């Protein structure tokens, strides 16, 4: 009897998995079915016409690509550098231990060094906490920050210095500021993934390099980074795929729903796949007529995101199998 009850409960738990699977299948199938048929050569290479009711989404694809590339250029080096700082330049023993060591060294020489270590450990803890908090900031707040800081503060001030009075070039929505805003949003993902990758490099390789007379930077450049490259790449791709799908941060930092030209400069505004979906969904005068276009756009966006995700996962599994030798 107990065995039967057991089986029933386990089956109940299993239905949750089935439910999740069902949701995923329905969503993907629905979008694939209605959306795939929209993806013709014309769809991908032509701009929209008839007030967004027909035509293609070429400018949105270009805008999304430009945005994502610019975002990566900002986020990846910065994120990798931060992770390297956290893992290679701060004490490994953590704040409590470093502080305890300092307190125990009362009256002995070398105290200064231990204090410096404890301070560095404190900075590392605060930085990690800041990264975790950055990861939790709502995407719309990033958008507000992009507006209030990058555009109103930095952009306007650049204009004050470089532009004739009244002219606004940097103090408005553009690829640059939208990319910076998105880069902030993806920064935690890159940092965490990079730190994980750095952790997989065994400590004795670093010691071997130092014992051969290499400096710390040379050790990082020649041993640590090459050894963690695939993990870093995975993190970068995952961060990029997240950034490609975010719409809230770019609402007021540069996205536009119709532009007669393609963006050619970082100060240009841009069209964007996700933003296009939002506008077509909520502000189209004739929902039924735009549905095909909408489905097509959603399909392209989803396909793009999934491709990036799969690429990241593939790289991760390939390195894991190679590493376990």
């Amino acid at each position, binding site marked *: 009897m107990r065995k039967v009850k057991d089986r029933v409960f386990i089956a109940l738990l299993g239905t949750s998995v089935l439910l999740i699977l069902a949701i995923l299948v329905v969503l993907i199938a629905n979008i694939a079915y209605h959306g795939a048929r929209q993806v013709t050569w014309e769809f991908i290479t032509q701009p929209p016409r008839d007030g967004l009711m027909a035509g293609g989404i070429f400018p949105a694809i270009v805008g999304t690509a430009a945005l994502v590339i610019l975002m990566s250029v900002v986020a990846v080096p910065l994120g990798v550098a931060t992770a390297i700082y956290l893992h290679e330049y701060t004490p490994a023993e953590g704040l409590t231990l470093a502080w305890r060591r300092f307190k125990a060294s009362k009256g002995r020489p070398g105290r200064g060094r231990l204090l410096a270590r404890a301070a560095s450990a404190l900075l590392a803890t605060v930085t990690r906490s800041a990264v975790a908090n950055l990861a939790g900031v709502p995407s719309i707040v990033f958008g507000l920050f992009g507006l209030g800081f990058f555009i109103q503060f930095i952009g306007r001030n650049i204009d004050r210095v470089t532009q004739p009075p009244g002219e606004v070039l940097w103090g408005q929505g553009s690829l640059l500021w939208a990319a910076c805003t998105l880069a902030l949003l993806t920064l935690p993902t890159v940092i965490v993934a990079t730190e994980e990758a750095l952790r997989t490099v065994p400590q004795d390789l670093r010691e071997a390099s130092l*014992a051969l007379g290499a400096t710390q930077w040379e050790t990082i450049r020649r041993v640590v980074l090459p050894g963690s490259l695939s993990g870093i790449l995975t993190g970068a791709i995952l961060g990029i795929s997240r950034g490609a799908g975010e719409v809230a941060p770019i609402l007021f930092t540069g996205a536009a729903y119709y532009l007669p030209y393609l963006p050619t400069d970082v100060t240009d505004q841009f069209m964007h796949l996700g933003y296009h979906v939002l506008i077509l969904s909520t502000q189209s005068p004739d929902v039924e007529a735009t549905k095909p276009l909408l489905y097509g756009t959603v399909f392209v966006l989803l396909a793009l995101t999934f491709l990036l995700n799969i690429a990241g996962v593939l790289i991760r599994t390939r390195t894991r199998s190679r590493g376990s*030798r």
Partner: protein
Amino acid sequence: MTTTNPAIEVRDFNFFYGDNKVLHDIALDIPQKQVTAFIGPSGCGKSTFLRSINRMNDIIPGARVEGRISLGGQDLYAPGVDVVSLRRRVGMVFQKSNPFPKSIYENVAYGLRIAGESDKRVLDSTIERSLQRAALWDEVKDRLNASALALSGGQQQRLCIARALAVDPEVLLMDEPASALDPIATQKIEELVYELKNNYTIVIVTHNMQQAARVSQRTAFFMLGKLVEFDDTRTIFMTPKEKLTEDYITGRFG
């Protein structure tokens, strides 16, 4: 005991981990172009002392030294000493072999490349000479571009030796280099060490007394962080002056 023109002079050397004094008043001279062995029960500080010679203990938090270690008359712990250059003059081979996940060629070339050497002819000849000196050349000369991780444990350790030799050190420190290897590989390493002394000053830490007896000309016996006795290997093993030494050699404790 003093030596004429020693490679390394140690005077009044003390080592601390935080409050913990781990090495007490060590004084000895390590002779040039000979093999000096450090022996003693585990935890006696011989590895710590070895690592102090190339200042690898610097990376450990709370490590502190007093006293003097001189290489060629220069105090290695004087302020302003370039630790990075020091580590080129004093090389190290670790207990567990740690080749980089690169090719055999690139492993040996590493030290040269960071010094700025990029001339292929210089690299090729130095690498060949180092691998020959490490008794590995014949086994790998046809596959220099293969991954170093594909070699056996003993071959990897000889590769690490070749890698250390490539930068032409004056002194080679070896921290229990054969302890992770099988007897045949161990024998190869011991023969190698004996050969290497012709060109390099070698200091080897070993927990294997027979190995120390086979391989070294001078032996230092450590216990509880103190240097108990330092003499010709023959003397230490046949007619030790200290009772503690005799007790250790005869296996009364270990």
